[in-house]
């Protein structure tokens, strides 16, 4: 029986350029997302500290 062989088509230069651009933008977006989440956590910790949250006596 003849085996099936997949063929991966060659992309054009323009397609590769768009692929690279997309990869670069995703990478930058990930860095920005991680930074924004980190900043939000720092702000939240700061706000909690300023509100005296950490000084509450539970007993």
């Amino acid at each position, binding site marked *: 029986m003849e085996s099936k062989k997949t063929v991966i088509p060659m992309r054009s230069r323009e397609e590769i350029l768009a*692929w690279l651009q997309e*990869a670069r933008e995703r990478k930058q977006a*990930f*860095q920005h997302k*991680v930074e924004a989440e980190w*900043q939000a956590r720092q702000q939240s910790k700061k706000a909690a500290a300023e509100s005296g949250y950490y000084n509450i006596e539970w007993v």
Partner: protein
Amino acid sequence: MNRLDTEAINRRSPYDVHYENEQYVFVTDNGIEYHVDFELDSNPYYTAYWFNLANPERFKSPNDKKIPQTVICIIEEFFNKNPEIMLYMCSTANNQQAQRARLFLRWFNGYEQRQRYYIKAVEVRGDENRKEYIALIIQRSNPQLDEIVSRFDSEIAMFNELKP
């Protein structure tokens, strides 16, 4: 993508890795956070994921060997759960992409199970002759290995030769 098992990662990883907001996160001895994620590539012809590594504070932690060891454990678990292709694009921050590519290859080449994988790092000359570095990592057991590597090589060679 199949989610990674952090317990499996942490059996070998020097830093404790946890899953948070669809990212794999670890904190170094110096208190520096690293976040890892994998994003599906848009190429419709085979399944591949872009590996992302980010440090929100952008602090440097040179000579911390536990960082590459932890990253390799995450990548190993990625391939255990996802028999796909991993792509990595080096950051161009401070124009140090070539150094980052060499560092990534050094990390990977020091990995004891390295022979299970085929890794190819290439320089790509994009717009304005900006150099970027991309690595393709694929398990040698992948039945499409030869075809994918051959296509990747051909495309990058064509891309670098042709002027826009």
